[in-house]
């Protein structure tokens, strides 16, 4: 154990952890990121991707300022994975109107910074011209614009950029113990590599705990204390873009909820409930699902006719403030320096939002650098993430390669300039132009590219990288096809190939099951027909590991 000491070990591969690793690596620190699952596999993977101007936290103007500035930075470094959504807040009663005024003022003050128009108030006719699904009885609506980022790609690009700058990223490595190393001034970090089944230890001068809902557990493994107020949120996901624009409205209890077109789907969210369950076991409840549908039904009356494909559930690690409603808890973040507990050089986060990830990283990296005596400025807001170098003319590429424009536009929205490299692969292998996931759609070349360049271990990891199986059929048709490609590229044995299929079915089913109804019943009959009736995988003797949410009856 006398190997060189890392400057920093970052624990957690979500939006914050990957941003911290990138910042540290860019400032020349010897950086290692350890993630117990995959990049963006927990909280950030269940969010709507809004890099919010601060709709919900108008009472904290300094946070709104910061968010506005961060949106500008994201648009500079990651514009290829950002989309802008117009949003309407329809009003059915005068009381709805009164709450909008304050927001409109605060929003409009900062609109120019983000290059969006100030808030507009629209007549019912104009509102319904933009979004015909709105209730005919609305009396007005408020129009504004927000930016949305692909949260999976953001985290992955930050992780990949960490590597570009000399940092290391290891997924499926769970930190078990952080302790003072007796032989040096370093900490030793013990972790379990879930892929190889082996234990590992590394030395580091500092540790950044960016484990989100698991931050208390990671802190405890270092003999330190972190408290959070864990708060769960559910989304209901529809099969297509069922609205032209985002719709934000008051829920049954007066909280704000939203319906956002998101990639090829629409997200309805979210709930906010204090939760002390193991985050790994959480699934959306019937109460949460009906709360969301009932609430949006006030302003989008035909919502129940739309096809729901699944749900998702995540946990926010809120700043621990007690005896106030969740909505009044600050949406800012805190960096905890554990020096006061006798653990100098260990830092933890609580709170924060997706939009703040880079800012949070800058703050903690400043502390780490100061501690290590490194004097390098932060450049994470200046240097673009991979793929954002220039514009891509997909119409020309569609003609050149004979791949559908739709498939290419979706690929461009994930990858920017990488589209060219991926298509280049099909010169030698034209068969890789075959569409594997038809819902999204995703072609085989992109799957192979991702496997080679983006370190996925499982089909679930591929889903996060290329949106495999995220559409209407929820992987019914692409699971076995993509599994074969993954198996070939990674040289997997037959057991791993079949386990991958079962694992992906399990993960998709986790979100489908709570809300199975309508067309999704036929979809599931088809999936059972394929994987159980024909494939006979229900009777397979391969070793399948139960998932946390499957345990118990």
């Amino acid at each position, binding site marked *: 154990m006398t190997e060189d000491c890392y400057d920093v070990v970052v624990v957690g591969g979500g939006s914050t952890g990957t941003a911290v690793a990138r910042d540290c690596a860019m400032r020349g620190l010897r950086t290692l990121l350890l993630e117990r699952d995959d990049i963006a596999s927990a909280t950030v993977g269940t969010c709507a991707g809004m890099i919010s101007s601060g709709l919900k936290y108008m009472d904290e103007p300094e946070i709104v300022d910061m968010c506005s500035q961060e949106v500008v930075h994201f648009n500079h470094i990651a514009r290829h994975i950002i989309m802008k959504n117009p949003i309407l807040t329809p009003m059915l009663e005068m009381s709805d109107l009164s709450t909008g005024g304050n927001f409109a003022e605060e929003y409009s003050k900062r609109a120019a910074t983000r290059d969006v128009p100030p808030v507009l108030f629209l007549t019912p006719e104009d509102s319904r011209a933009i979004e015909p699904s709105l209730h005919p009885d609305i009396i007005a609506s408020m129009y504004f614009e927000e930016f949305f980022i692909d949260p999976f790609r953001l985290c992955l690009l930050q992780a990949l950029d960490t590597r570009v700058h000399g940092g290391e990223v290891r997924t499926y490595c769970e930190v078990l113990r952080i302790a003072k190393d007796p032989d040096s001034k370093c900490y030793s970090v013990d972790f379990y590599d879930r892929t190889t089944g082996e234990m590992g230890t590394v030395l580091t001068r500092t540790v950044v705990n960016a484990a989100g809902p698991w931050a208390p557990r990671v802190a405890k493994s270092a003999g330190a204390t972190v408290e959070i107020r864990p708060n769960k949120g559910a989304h209901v996901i529809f099969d297509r873009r069922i609205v032209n624009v985002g719709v934000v409205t008051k829920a049954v209890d007066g909280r704000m909820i939203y319906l956002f077109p998101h990639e090829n789907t629409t997200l309805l969210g979210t709930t906010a409930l204090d939760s002390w369950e193991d985050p790994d076991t959480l699934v959306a409840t*019937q109460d949460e*699902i*009906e709360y969301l549908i009932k609430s949006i039904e006030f302003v989008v009356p035909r919502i*129940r006719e739309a096809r729901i494909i699944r749900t998702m559930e995540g946990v926010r690690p809120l700043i621990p403030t007690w005896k106030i409603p969740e909505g009044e808890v600050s949406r800012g973040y805190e960096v905890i320096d554990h020096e006061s507990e006798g653990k100098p050089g260990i830092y933890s986060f609580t709170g924060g939002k997706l939009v703040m990830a880079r800012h949070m990283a800058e703050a903690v990296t400043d502390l780490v650098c100061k501690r290590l005596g490194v004097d390098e400025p932060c450049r994470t807001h200046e240097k673009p993430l991979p793929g954002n170098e220039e514009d891509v003319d997909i119409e020309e590429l569609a003609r050149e390669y*004979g791949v559908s424009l739709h498939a290419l536009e979706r690929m461009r929205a994930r990858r920017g300039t990488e589209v060219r490299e991926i298509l280049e692969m099909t010169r030698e292998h*034209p*068969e*890789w*132009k*075959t*569409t*594997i996931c038809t819902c999204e759609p995703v072609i*085989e070349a992109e799957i192979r590219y991702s496997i080679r360049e983006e370190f996925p271990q499982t089909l679930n990891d591929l889903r996060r990288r290329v949106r495999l199986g995220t559409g209407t059929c929820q992987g019914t048709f692409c699971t*076995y*096809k993509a*599994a*074969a*490609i993954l*198996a*070939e590229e990674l040289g997997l*044995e*037959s*057991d791993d*190939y*079949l386990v991958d*299929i*079962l694992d992906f*079915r*399990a993960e*998709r*089913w*986790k979100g489908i*099951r*709570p*809300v*199975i*109804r*309508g067309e999704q*019943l*036929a979809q*599931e*009959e*088809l999936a*059972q*027909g*394929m*994987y*159980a*009736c*024909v*494939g*006979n*995988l*229900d*009777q*397979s*003797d391969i070793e399948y590991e139960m998932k946390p*949410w*499957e345990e118990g*009856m």
Partner: protein
Amino acid sequence: MHMETEVLVIGGGLAGLVAGTRAAEAGHRVLLVQKGHGATAYSSGAFDVIGYLPDALEPVANPVEGLSVLAQVYPLHPYSIAGFPVDVESGGESAVVLALVSETVEWLKDRLDKTPAALSGGLDSNLVAMTVLGTTKPTCLLQKSMVSIPEMEGEEDGVLLFAGVRGYADFAPGAAAKVFLRDRMMNKKYPQKIAHCQVRVSPSGTDYNISGVEIARHLDHPGSIDSLAKELAVYIDQFGATDVALPPVLGIQNAISNKEALEERLGVRVFELLGLPPSVPGLRLQNSLEQMYLESGGALLRGHEVVSYTMEGDRLISVQTKGPSREIQISAQAFVLATGKFIGGGLSGDKDGVREIVFDLMSVTGEFVSAEEASPSRSTSKLAVSPLGQPVLSNGVSVDSFLRPVKRNGLEWTTNLFSAGSIIAGYNYATEKSGLGVAATTGYTAALRVTEYLKEVAQNE
């Protein structure tokens, strides 16, 4: 518009087409209303009768044994119900059910014998079919372009070649080869020499996004099998292959003759694997059943669905159907409901419960509890793919011993509506591997009950 018939069958999958054909053969005037293709057209080429008993972890020794146990232990299973209107002495249930299924299977084999979906196999033993995943499953009958794995087990020197088609993503020969090899090693069976390759079949001149139906249509053209044979010959030579497994794309019409032609040209055994939807063997079966039905003298109304109905006393007298351009009122003396489950469109579910869509009949779960007021998610297992299956797929209508849907009080909803296929509750075809067998047996039986009913009505008049 108004039409009249003696027997009206609602639903054009296997259950409905078998019921319609059998009724037409019994001399009735039959009209069948078909909304579109249902689960039959998605099927794999295997004709399951019974592979596993409910919740069992081992396959049944053979269909005869499986059916015997079902008849004795699961009296509410559709196989058991179909066999039970006969006065059965206790202990004689198995024989009755066996005789019925056997009669159905022999009848159907005979009717399909000259079609592209001709079947081989019988109730005495289950075949072992290999799938495009490389896995195997027990099934009763197979389309004749396919083969039961034990037929290959004799020769220790056998070399099995999995051949895929470049740009056709539904079959990955490399992955399937590995899965099957593992199965052979674990079970200490042959062949254990396994190779894989990808050949080029390019119906439209491109090498990507090629569908199974496209390849099958291409291979239906005379002479197009020659270039496939040439491609295969290279790899057969290279690996010394004795057997060649292909995805199920050998033709919609000519799969069997194409298989024979390849075998003759190449001097090896050639067979198709079971496929996943969209399925060429499923299309063969659907087409062949429709042909069988039309040849029996039945009339077919395509693209129509039943939207309302009229009762008179305890009898159903007519239904209203809706098609792309018109509505038709159809009167009949007896009706068969064979609308399938969720794929077929016989059942639909929302957050409050599951309902039968044509007549709003009482829907029940596989446990025969009302499914009308329980969220479908409550009838599901946490496990995505397991021997428990998804219990919601056992939902359907509860039927009396004449296959007539019943009301809450257990009495028939009407005297002249019979049911067949997966609209019937109480079995999970995906885990039992019993789908087409139940569909055929209940379809066949429903037709028998219709005949009895019509005879009775005639006598009373």
